[in-house]
């Protein structure tokens, strides 16, 4: 199958894991308090997603149906452990900040979902592209939630923990604290989900109109 440019960008809007597929919501809500956490979690998830997709695709003809879920879990858990060890060694502040959520990537529905729905049925190249696309889409979703929450809830944008923090005038001294709390995460997610529903509906309508005109 030929790789199209759409395959690279499908994770952004039309098949966005967070807002359209509604997968991996636990870390999306939990680590979206600061932009730097969202970026770290998004990239870590992307690395695991890409490598697990590649390996599952490579082994798709070897893995028997009866044991495919245990095999996927072994593969995903191992890559998560590799990422966790690398973060602890070379990005310790980020590892400390993300805490248990790095290990919880193992049970992130996006990774098992893409393994089950895509990687086990497609070639290595297609699975690699799917992993990148979904990973970027997840990172984009996390960043969007985190940027809104940090600006409104803390009046800041943290790019490097305690070193590079942009303070937003007025909001820094008078933040809407509720947005930084879990209730705020659900509110922001709800509004963004509504926006993405509207956006996909508009895109679908345009596509149908184009098809009809052609």
């Amino acid at each position: 199958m030929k790789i199209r440019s759409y395959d690279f960008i499908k994770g952004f809007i039309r098949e966005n894991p967070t807002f359209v597929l509604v997968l991996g919501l636990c870390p999306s809500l939990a680590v979206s308090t600061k932009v730097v956490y969202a970026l770290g979690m998004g990239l870590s998830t992307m690395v695991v997603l890409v490598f697990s997709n590649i390996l599952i695709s490579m082994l798709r003809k070897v893995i028997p149906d009866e044991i495919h879920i245990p095999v996927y879990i072994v593969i995903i858990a191992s890559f998560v452990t590799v990422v966790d060890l690398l973060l602890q060694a070379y990005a310790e502040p980020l590892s400390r900040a993300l805490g248990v959520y790095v290990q919880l990537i193992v049970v992130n529905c996006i990774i098992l979902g893409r393994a089950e729905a895509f990687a086990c049925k497609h070639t290595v190249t297609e699975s690699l592209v799917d992993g990148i696309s979904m990973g970027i889409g997840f990172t984009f979703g996390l960043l969007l939630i985190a940027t809104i929450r940090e600006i409104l809830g803390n009046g800041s944008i943290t790019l490097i923990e305690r070193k590079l923090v942009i303070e937003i005038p007025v909001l820094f001294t008078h933040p809407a604290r509720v947005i930084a709390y879990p209730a705020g995460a659900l509110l922001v997610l709800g509004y963004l989900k509504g926006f993405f529903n509207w956006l996909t509906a508009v895109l679908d309508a345009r596509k149908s109109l184009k098809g009809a005109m052609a």
Partner: protein
Amino acid sequence: MKNRLLRNILVLAGICSFFALLLGLVNMFTGPVIGENKARDEKKALAGLVRDGESTGEAKAVDGHPVVKGAIPVLAGGEPAGLILTLVIDGYGGPVTIMANYQKDGTLVKAVVVNDTETPGIGKRIEEEWYMALFAGKGGADPIPLKKSQLPAEQADSLTGATITFTAVSAALEAGSAWMKNNPEVVAP
């Protein structure tokens, strides 16, 4: 049937063996770096715990206590002034390691969280300096607050959520203070 079972076992065992090898290799490279990071963090925490004019002695392990795991003598002008205790307690997300400087009478001078896996944005606030400062000066005549309701109203308001983490931290600091009072021979031999 038998062949399928055998094939399944072999495939799973093969994949597990491959990943065990991969993880072993990664651990071989990252293990020493992680160890260095932890040692550096502890050194940094220790340096931040002693006051001007104080120095630290040789660390001693504490056996058989559920929370207190180690003690480092604090010396002021060569005389024992107190101890820095290593406290380990279960928080919300796993073990929380705290290093705390106590005076001889069990009063907490300063404490820092060295390691924890609490929830980012909620329980992780224990790593911030203001959080541990809530307990400074307590543990001697003034007891360590074990409930948020025992804190002044304005301090209790700043601790929204993460009750399990707060309870764990305060219980660990209280255990350290009690240990200081019960082991005067270790504090000033």
